[in-house]
C-alpha cells in the first residue's frame, strides 16, 4: 500500500501536535530571549519557514502544511511575537526580491531565531497613504543617507535589521521615487523611542533617522522600485495576519462577556445584546474558516481578507458596547487586581487600534469596493504629480520635511 497525501498530512499534523505540546512554554514570559530560544527550537524541529524554498533555508512545503501549522498553533500561546514580522514579512520579501548575497546573509540567522527584524513603513505624515512617505534617502557616494521619522514600529527596540522605505527621487510621482533598504537598527544616527499608546502601554516605537548611511548592497529590489517591494511585503502581511492567529486572552470575546454576565447578573436586554454579539463573533469565525477552506482548495483569498479585518474591528466595537450593558458602572471603576475588569479596560482601550492599524476601516471598505466589487475609483488628485509638489500629512509648507515635524501618526 502506498502512502497517500492525506496520510502524509495526517502524520505531519500528529507529529507537529506532539512537538508543540512538548515545546511551547506553558506560561510564556513574552521576553525576547525566550522568543529567540523558541524560534531556534522551531528551526531545529523543521518548523521554521515551512513554505520557504529549501534553497533559502526553508522547508519547501506547501500551503496545506502551513495551514495545519496555523490550525495546531492556534491552541497555543506561542512566544514568537518578535519574529512575526521577520518570518512573516521581511523574510518572504527577501526570498522574493533579495540578491543571493542578501539571502545568504539574512535568511539563516532569521530562521534560526538569531536576528530580529522590523518594518519601517509608516510615518507621521504617511498613515493610510503609505506612499506619501517623506523619509529622504539622499545619494552620497555609492550609497545613500537616510533622514526622517518612522512610527508605529513594532520590534524596533530589539530588532537587528529593518526593512525601510525611503524617498530616493522626489521629482518623480509619489509611488515612483521610493526605494526599500535594509537598515542596521544599530547604525549611527538611528534612534528608537517607545511610543505610549492610549492603553498606556508602549508596544510600538518611533524611529528617528538622522543621517543614517546605507550602501548599494542594502537595496532590497531595485532603486525607485520600492513601492513594488512594499506591495510584495504587504501581500505577505495579509497572509501572516490571517494565517497565524493565536490564542489570545481578551476581555471582549463573547465567552469573557458571558462570564461577566454570570458574575454581575444579566437582564433580558443584556442577554439580547450578548446573543447578538455571539452571532456576530460566530459568523466571523465561520467566514475565516471558510476562507481557509477555500485557500486550501486553491482559491487565493485576495482582497477578501479585508472583510475579516473590517468585521473583526467592528465586532470589537460591538463588544465594547455589549460590555457596558453587562458591566455598567463596574466598567467605570473596579478594584485593583480585578483582572477581568482590567482586561475589559484593555480591550476597550485597544479597540481603536483594531479599527486603525494595518489599514483603517475606511481603507478596508475602499479595498472591498475597488478591488472586489470593481467600483470606480475616486478622482486621484496626486497621481502623476512630482512628489515635491504635493502636500502630505499636516505639513504647512512644501519645503517642510518629516524630520522637522512632530510625530503625527497615520489616518
Amino acid at each position, binding site marked *: 500500500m502506498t502512502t497517500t497525501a492525506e496520510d502524509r498530512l495526517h502524520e505531519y499534523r500528529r507529529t507537529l501536535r506532539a512537538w508543540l505540546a512538548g515545546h511551547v512554554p506553558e506560561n510564556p514570559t513574552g521576553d525576547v530571549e525566550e522568543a529567540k530560544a523558541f524560534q531556534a527550537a522551531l528551526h531545529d524541529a523543521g518548523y521554521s519557514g515551512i513554505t520557504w524554498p529549501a534553497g533559502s533555508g526553508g522547508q519547501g512545503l506547501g500551503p496545506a502544511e502551513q495551514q495545519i501549522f496555523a490550525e495546531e498553533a492556534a491552541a497555543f500561546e506561542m512566544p514568537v511575537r518578535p519574529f512575526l514580522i521577520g518570518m512573516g514579512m521581511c523574510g518572504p520579501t527577501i526570498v522574493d526580491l533579495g540578491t543571493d548575497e542578501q539571502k545568504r546573509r539574512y535568511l539563516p540567522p532569521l530562521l534560526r531565531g538569531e536576528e530580529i527584524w522590523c518594518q519601517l513603513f509608516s510615518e507621521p505624515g504617511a498613515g493610510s497613504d503609505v506612499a506619501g512617505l517623506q523619509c529622504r534617502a539622499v545619494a552620497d557616494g555609492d550609497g545613500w543617507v537616510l533622514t526622517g521619522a518612522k512610527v508605529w514600529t513594532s520590534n524596533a527596540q530589539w530588532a537587528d535589521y529593518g526593512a525601510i522605505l525611503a524617498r530616493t527621487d522626489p521629482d518623480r510621482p509619489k509611488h515612483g521615487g521610493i526605494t526599500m533598504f535594509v537598515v542596521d537598527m544599530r547604525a549611527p544616527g538611528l534612534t528608537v523611542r517607545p511610543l505610549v499608546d492610549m492603553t498606556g502601554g508602549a508596544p510600538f516605537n518611533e524611529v528617528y533617522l538622522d543621517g543614517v548611511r546605507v550602501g548599494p548592497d542594502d537595496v532590497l529590489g531595485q532603486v525607485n522600485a520600492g513601492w513594488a517591494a512594499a506591495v510584495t511585503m504587504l501581500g505577505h502581511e495579509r497572509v501572516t495576519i490571517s494565517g497565524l492567529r493565536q490564542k489570545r486572552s481578551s476581555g471582549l470575546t463573547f465567552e469573557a462577556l*458571558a462570564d461577566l*454576565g*454570570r458574575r454581575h447578573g*444579566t437582564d*433580558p436586554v443584556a*442577554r*439580547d445584546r*450578548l*446573543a*447578538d454579539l*455571539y*452571532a*456576530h463573533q*460566530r*459568523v*466571523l469565525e*465561520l*467566514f475565516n*474558516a*471558510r476562507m481557509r*477552506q*477555500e485557500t486550501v*482548495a486553491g482559491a487565493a483569498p485576495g482582497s*477578501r481578507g479585508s*472583510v475579516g479585518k*473590517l*468585521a473583526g474591528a467592528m465586532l470589537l466595537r460591538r463588544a465594547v458596547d455589549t460590555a457596558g450593558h453587562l458591566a455598567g458602572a463596574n466598567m467605570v471603576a473596579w478594584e485593583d487586581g480585578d483582572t477581568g475588569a482590567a482586561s475589559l479596560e484593555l480591550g476597550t482601550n485597544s479597540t481603536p487600534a483594531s479599527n486603525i492599524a494595518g489599514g483603517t476601516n*475606511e481603507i*478596508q*471598505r*475602499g479595498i*472591498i*469596493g*475597488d478591488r*472586489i*466589487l*470593481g*467600483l*470606480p*475609483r*475616486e*478622482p486621484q488628485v496626486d497621481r502623476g504629480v512630482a512628489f515635491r509638489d504635493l502636500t502630505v500629512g499636516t505639513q504647512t509648507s512644501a519645503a517642510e520635511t518629516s524630520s522637522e515635524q512632530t510625530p503625527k501618526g497615520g489616518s
Partner: protein
Amino acid sequence: MDLVLTSEQQELRAAVRDLLTDHADSARVRTAMDSDTGHDAELWRRLGTDLGVLGLAVPEELGGAGAGHVERSVLAAELGRALVPSPFLASAVFVLDTLLALPAQPARDELAAALASGERIAALAVAEDGAGVFDPGPSATRATRSGDGWRIEGRKSPVLSGEVADVLVVHAVTDDGPALFLVEAGASGLTRARLASIDPTRRLARIDLAGTPATRLDGDAAAALSAAGDRGAVALAAEQTAGIERAMELTVEYAKIRVQFGRPIGSYQAVKHGCADMYAAWEQSESAVRYAAWAADHDPGALPLAAAVAGVYVGPRYFEVATGMVQYHGGIGYTWEHDAHLFYKRAKSDELLLGTPGAQRARLAGLLNI
C-alpha cells in the same frame, strides 16, 4: 465541517439558476405575484417534476432526491435570489421538515412523497394571533375525537401559502396534549381568507376551522416543530443570503453607471463604503448558511445553535442591505417599476416570519445558556 460547495452542488445551483433565468425573470415574478394563486404553477411543475428538486432533503424511500440540506439551501438561495413567489418555503420546507421529524406512518409518508414531487402543496397552520410560523403560543385551537377521526375548532394566522395549499398541517391541543393534524383543503367547516401582506411576493392566509374533520399524525408535535424550525431557519437564511447577494450585485451594477456631479456614484465613498458593508454582510451570511446547512446534514447536535446564529445574523442584514439598495438607487429605487422595493419588502417579511428579532435572539441566548 465543509463550508465550500462541491462541484455537484455548484452544478445544481447552475441548473436552478438557468431554469429561473428562463422562467422567473422580473416580468414573470410580477405576473405570478399578481395572479390569483400568487405563484406560477408551471414553474412549480418544472421544479417538482422536470428538475425534481422539491424533495432534495427527502430520503429516496419517501420519494425524495436523498440529497440533503446543503443542496436544499442551494435551491432556497436561487429561489430567494430571483424573489420567486412560490409555496416552496411553506410546502417543501416547513411542512416537509415537520413531517420528516415525525415517525414513519402512512399518512405522513404519502404526503411527503406528494410534496417532494410538487404534486400537492401543503401549508403549516401552527401560528395564532400573528406569532412566528412555528410558534403555536398558548394555542386556543382544540381537537376532539369524532368517531374514527378528529374534528378541529380554532383559528390560525398567519399561515404561509395557506390559501393555495391542498392540505394543511394543523397544530391543535387535544385532551392528551398538543398534536399535529392533516386537514384537506376541501374539508367541511374550513375557511381561508387572504391576509394583506407587506410582501407582494408572499401569500399568507387566515384559516378558520369550525368542526373541521382532520387526521391526527402520530408523534411529538413540539419536538417535530422544533426540529423543523431549525431546518426552516436554515432554508430561510439561505434565501435571505441570496437576496443580500442579488441586492448587492444590482446596487453595484447601478453605482457603476449612474453618474452624478460628473462621476459614477459608486466612486463616492458614501456609496462605495455602503456597498462594501453589503459585501461584508454577504460573505458572513454565506458562511453562516454554509455551516448551518452542513450541520443539518452532518452534525444535527450542532444544528440548533448554528440555525439560531444564522437566523439572528442574517435577517437584519438582509433588510439593511435592501434598505441600502433602495437608497443608492435614489428615486428610481423608490418606484414600483424597479425591483428594489421587492427586495426591501421580502427582506422585511423574511426578517419577521419566524418571530421578532428579539425572540430569535432570546432563543439563541437560551441555547448559549446565558
